[in-house]
């Protein structure tokens, strides 16, 4: 469309400029899609958090009132800070997937008959959808027929109703979440261990290092890339936790297992009412928390880019 008639040879014009035009053309569809569905909505949510809106009528501008409501918990008692606290518990305990995954990877890093199949079967929980993991663990915890209480019964303990107890419920859900997450970290470390330089291990052995010292001083430094990815994925996963809570407890009992991601959904889209602006404010808070981590990840990537 570029008024090519004015130039003597349109083909020549394209030929001369294709080095600069080609990247723009290749990027256009992807960037357009991503901007419409991901980048632009972020700003829309920020804007929406300043309004009160039921999703149908006209939105009413309320300034920062949604945030004040959150801060003082004027609307839902004990919902915001419980969610925030649970998010923090998720964040800390979910990181256990990293040492647990490393432990299983070290356990399985052998060459015995059938070990490949064992590795895949250990990895298996990661492939299953979180919805099914949630169902599986709900039944595992069930106070009447769950396997957990059956086993506790054998040793004369229990029964405990993990998902019905406000003090235990979040830990019970995190345990379910750790199952697939540990599997993921395991596979990262198994791949990492494959690439560990055998000469350095031998050198370490000659220096008399073994066991813990070898792991700490020789092996772990070489596993750094794997550890970094494990951190990124685990932190994002912890803050995104939604499926398990939705399937296992719907935030209950008495809202004690809510996290920000679930609370937001509850406020904006469930029978709780369609409080879109208030929900957007919760989403903004969650977004800002995640932004700290995202900024850190990007900064590390930026450093690597400069170096390489």
């Amino acid at each position, binding site marked *: 469309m570029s008024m090519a008639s004015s130039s003597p040879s349109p083909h020549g014009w394209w030929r001369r400029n294709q*080095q600069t035009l080609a*990247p723009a053309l290749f990027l256009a569809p992807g960037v357009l899609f991503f901007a419409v569905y991901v980048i632009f*909505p972020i700003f829309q949510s920020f804007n929406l958090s300043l309004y009160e809106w039921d999703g149908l009528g006209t939105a009413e501008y309320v300034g920062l009132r949604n945030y004040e409501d959150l801060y003082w918990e004027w609307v839902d008692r004990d919902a915001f800070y419980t969610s925030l606290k649970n998010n923090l518990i998720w964040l800390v305990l979910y990181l256990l997937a990293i040492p647990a995954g490393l432990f299983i990877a070290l356990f399985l890093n*052998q060459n015995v008959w059938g070990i490949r199949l064992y590795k895949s079967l250990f990895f298996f929980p990661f492939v299953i959808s979180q919805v099914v993991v949630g169902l*599986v663990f709900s*039944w595992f915890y069930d106070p009447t027929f769950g396997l957990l209480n*059956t086993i506790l019964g054998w040793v004369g303990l229990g029964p405990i109703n993990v998902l019905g107890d406000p003090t235990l419920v979040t830990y019970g859900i995190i345990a379910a979440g750790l199952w697939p997450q540990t599997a993921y970290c395991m596979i990262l470390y198994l791949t990492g261990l494959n690439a560990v330089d055998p000469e350095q291990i031998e050198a370490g052995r000659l220096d008399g290092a073994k066991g813990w010292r070898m792991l700490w001083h020789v092996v772990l430094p070489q596993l750094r890339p794997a550890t970094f990815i494990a951190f990124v994925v685990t932190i994002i996963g912890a803050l995104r936790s939604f499926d398990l809570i939705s399937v296992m407890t719907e935030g209950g009992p008495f809202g004690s297992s809510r996290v920000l991601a679930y609370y937001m959904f509850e406020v904006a889209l469930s029978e709780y009412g369609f409080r879109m602006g208030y929900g957007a404010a919760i989403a903004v808070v969650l977004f800002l928390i*995640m932004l700290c981590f995202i900024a850190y990840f*990007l900064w590390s990537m930026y450093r690597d880019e400069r170096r390489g």
Partner: protein
Amino acid sequence: MFPTPIEKRSAAVRNSYQALVPFALILWLLPLIAVAVFSIRPDADFANANYWGWPSSFEGVTNYSMVFFESDMPRYLMNSVLITVPTVLGAVALSCMTGFALGVYRFKGNLWVFFMFVAGNFIPFQILMVPVRDLTLDLGLYDTKTGLVLFHVAFQTGFCTLFMRNFIRALPRELIEAARVEGVSEFRIFWYVVLPLMRPAIAALSVLIFTFIWNDYFWAIVLTQGPDSQPVTAGITAFNSQFRAMYHLMSAGSIVAALPPVAMFFLMQKHFIAGLTLGAVK
């Protein structure tokens, strides 16, 4: 190799390791095994509180045919396929192009566009929820598979671009330079030089995105409702309320819902792990 290879240890250590591995595996998969056992029990076992004893009969065929012939499960499975496959095609196609543009060309703002994709990939879904739902409603695509596919393609393009760009960066640049010297056009370079080399990345990414999208639950409940368009992850909750407290059927249903990505994983294991662990080794 670390830890010390087991072959170099005594026979006793070797044998106990060989015995320990299957035992640990059973322990690890115990919750899942329990569900699998439930799914072949008859109704009567639950009425008689025979949860963990020997099943009074084996009703695997009955239970699973209930799931396939007496419920909406096949429709949900079909919806999942019709959502997942177009998403994989769309996201991989878009990201081959964006990855190529960001991996091959040096231009101002390259890194910033790349970081936009990477950062977008990490954000919480909730910040997109209300606007994306509105957009889908405005487009008349609420409660349709198309609406879900469009969003998934857009969002997955973030992760796929990260993956593709890094893969292309690792390809030998001389190939592209040589083609340019020969006067090959940029589009032909993309199509005939780079794309064939990207085959392993395309395979790995396809398997990975298939699993991610098949297992998506959040967007399924935000953008769809009902058996006409909901995928199986959302359908399983409807299925469970239809067969409330019938644990043998609920177990069978869950296993059916979980199976396709599991099959995908076991069939394409090499690609799957290559995709997941890209970047885990330097």
